[in-house]
């Protein structure tokens, strides 16, 4: 099994065509931090936290491993000085939005991220898309989606669908890394479909 041979942290691993570097690493028990990854969902590449160093034919580049396909003879490093620095900055940017999210504070300790480096803009949603993608791909109800763009982008329930299904499902709730989803749901329910 496995036609593609390459290295992760000096360890030789094999992969089938179409597998991502993250999938291979997780199968081999090599830890790469992630926020927006979920095994039941299509790769999204939203949080950028799974960034790794890849050496390919002598060139070094930095890629997000959850969407980077495994390739022959590449050398992947899951930690290096630069990878750690990149992750630290990503965490600091995310923490400007969700300063107290448990997963973020945990990772911040590992990478020495300062939650106060950037001016706080507590929107609490970090746009990982887990709720949106779970509802579309697994629950297949499309009750929640993204609206607007750029700094105004946010999650939004479709009241008609949410009123009908959400109370009996709520499977996306534990996925949210910041608990903003629960708050958004309670708010949407109070505003658009109270008592439903």
């Amino acid at each position, binding site marked *: 099994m496995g036609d593609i041979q390459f290295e992760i942290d000096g360890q030789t691993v094999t992969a089938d065509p179409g597998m991502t570097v993250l999938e291979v690493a997780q199968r081999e028990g090599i830890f790469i931090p992630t926020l927006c990854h979920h095994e039941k969902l299509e790769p999204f590449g939203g949080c950028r936290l799974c960034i790794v160093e890849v050496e390919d034919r002598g060139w070094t580049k930095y890629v997000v491993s959850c969407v980077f396909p495994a390739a022959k003879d590449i050398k992947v490093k899951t930690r290096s000085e630069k990878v750690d620095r990149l992750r630290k900055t990503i965490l600091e940017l995310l923490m400007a939005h969700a300063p107290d999210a448990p997963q973020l504070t945990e990772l911040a300790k590992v990478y020495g991220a300062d939650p106060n480096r950037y001016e706080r803009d507590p929107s609490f949603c970090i746009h990982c898309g887990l709720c949106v993608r779970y*509802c579309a791909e697994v629950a297949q109800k499309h009750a929640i989606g993204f609206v607007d763009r750029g700094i105004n982008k946010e999650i939004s329930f*479709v009241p008609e669908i949410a009123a009908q299904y959400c109370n009996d499902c709520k499977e996306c709730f534990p996925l949210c890394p910041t608990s903003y989803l629960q708050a958004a749901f309670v708010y949407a329910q109070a505003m658009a479909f109270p008592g439903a």
Partner: protein
Amino acid sequence: MEIERVDQIIEKHHGEASNLLQIMLDIQSENNWLSKQALARVSEKLSVPMTRIQHIATFYKAFSLVPKGRHKVHICMGTACHVRGATRILDTVEDATGIKPGETDLDLKFSLETVNCLGCCALGPVMEVDGKVHGKMSPVKASSALKTYE
């Protein structure tokens, strides 16, 4: 906008989900905005989830989810127009139409927006109505230009 007309537009694009954006643009240009009923119909006919339609409708500035007037008035606030008195033009238009930038009047006649440059700075101050450029505006000229629109 009647549901029949929405169906016609969908029919024109063969009811294919890949033509979603074009269908939405057609509804927008005919109706000046996207009503919830129209979008619900599109969602149903193309079997595209409402969440995706919402995402697209809020992503592009060309779409409006609130009613817009028949005439779109754009006042240029770019540097060149600004120094030649664009604020006075804006004040005049606000008085003449009774609305502020971003608003639409109750008769759905005018929608007013400010823009940052229309690319014809030599004509400043510039007012654009429905894509037609009115250059070298003065407050008097601006208010008389608006009177020509029904």
